[in-house]
């Protein structure tokens, strides 16, 4: 069945505004799930609470693995990532001084490879990583791996690749299509689906591109005003009146 995330009694507020109020939620029971909702619904905040970027006011987040429950509430971002829960970013995060290749190497480095003078100096480390990097450079169509990612789209792709290279068990993707043309979005999601299948990885996608959500997700959660209001198959969520009224507007109805 693989890993799942269980949220209980989670609450987070900023200056009197409650942005997350979730009594109970299980995420990643399915291979690829969607999390949708209007702007300001609290979707990104929920991801930040799960991955340890911010701490909840109350409540808990647990990672369920092999019949055991690992408490990850308030755990630091890097410890949560080491447990296999990794998140791609809504806003572009990039090591601007690193080339595309070096940025990928950073994700591939293990504890053994790290340390002053070792990371980028070791020929065998580069050689070992070369075929893996070559695969991703080809899949994402980077023109030159020794160059820097300049456009917003390239930076976005690099962010996604860096996360995949960590071989996560659960990948949380916060608006992965932003800055990418439709055709490239399809390629990225095809790649993510292949990796999910190959590495037994679960994926949760936050997205406003509903065509993508309906196409790739097996299960969808709908969130508004800080609360999870509905779960179901893409078809159940797509045809729900509440979702149409609160979120989709006329063009998708």
């Amino acid at each position, binding site marked *: 069945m693989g890993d799942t995330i269980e949220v209980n009694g989670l609450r987070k507020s*900023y*200056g009197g*505004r409650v942005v997350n109020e979730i009594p109970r939620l299980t995420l990643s029971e399915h291979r690829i799930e969607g999390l949708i*909702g*209007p*702007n*300001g*619904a*609290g*979707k*990104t*905040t929920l991801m930040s609470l799960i991955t340890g970027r911010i701490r909840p006011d109350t409540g808990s987040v647990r990672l369920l693995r092999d019949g055991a429950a690992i408490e990850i509430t308030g755990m630091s971002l890097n410890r949560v990532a080491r447990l296999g829960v990794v998140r791609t970013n*809504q*806003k*572009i995060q990039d090591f601007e001084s690193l080339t595309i290749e070096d940025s990928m190497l950073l994700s591939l480095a293990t504890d053994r490879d790290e340390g002053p003078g070792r990371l980028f100096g070791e020929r065998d480390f580069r050689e070992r990583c070369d075929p893996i990097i070559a695969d991703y450079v080809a899949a994402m169509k980077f*023109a030159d791996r020794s160059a820097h990612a*300049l*456009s*917003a*789209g*390239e930076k976005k*792709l690099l962010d996604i690749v860096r996360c995949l290279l960590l071989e996560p068990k659960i990948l949380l993707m916060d*608006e992965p299509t*932003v*800055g*990418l*043309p*439709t*055709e*490239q979005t399809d390629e990225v999601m095809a790649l993510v689906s292949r990796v999910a299948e190959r590495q037994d990885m679960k994926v949760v996608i936050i997205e*406003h591109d*509903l065509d993508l959500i309906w196409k790739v997700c097996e299960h969808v959660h709908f969130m508004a005003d800080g609360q999870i209001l509905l779960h179901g198959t893409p078809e159940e969520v797509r045809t729900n009146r509440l979702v149409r009224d609160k*979120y*989709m*507007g*006329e*063009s*998708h109805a």
Partner: protein
Amino acid sequence: MLELRGIRSGYGDVTILKDVDLTVEAEIFAVLGANGAGKSTLMRTIARLLAVEAGDLRFRGEDVTAVAPNRLAEMGISLVPQEANIFPNLTVRENLSLGTMFGTRSSRSRIDEVFDLFPDIAARADQKAGSLSGGESQMVAFGRALAQEPRLMLLDEPTTGLSPKYVNLLLEKVRQIHDSHGVAILLAEQNAVKALEVASRVLVLSLGKVYLDSPVSETDLEAIQGGYHI
């Protein structure tokens, strides 16, 4: 209204735009192209956030190749950038009021107009903008540019992070301000179909050069897609 002749610009040693010629009248001009084609660089160059390496930039007949960005804003050019687009430590209202430094109508009426368009941020008028979600931040950035009473709006993927309902609202507003006030719009978008629904002219950039510059009515999607596959 806006003329670019032989424009070259980029970042440090890397030249992105190569000899770009472009004339923008009071129209909605969709700017399309693959990743790295130079769409954002074009916007930032026109707004003078990037230095022009070669070529001339003219706005309403005046040479603005070396004019400071704040002077351009005063002349009526407003930019909605792709990222880092609001002041997180100012409230939503304060962010919007920065857009009313220039222009003629009262600051209040212009801010109220933005709130009418985006009720979600009206409810958060006195909150720090840094506490907003990504989509709400985008509404503030667009609202601030709108409040400037611009003659030319540079919109760099303005629908980024917006829910489907607001994508349609925003694009409808773009059409309205063009129709009612004759505002020229340069609209860079990844969603070509949405952009072409409101645009009358389309520019396709490819590897920093103009691949296609044509009225939308005379252009089919296949011709546009050619610029993505070079």
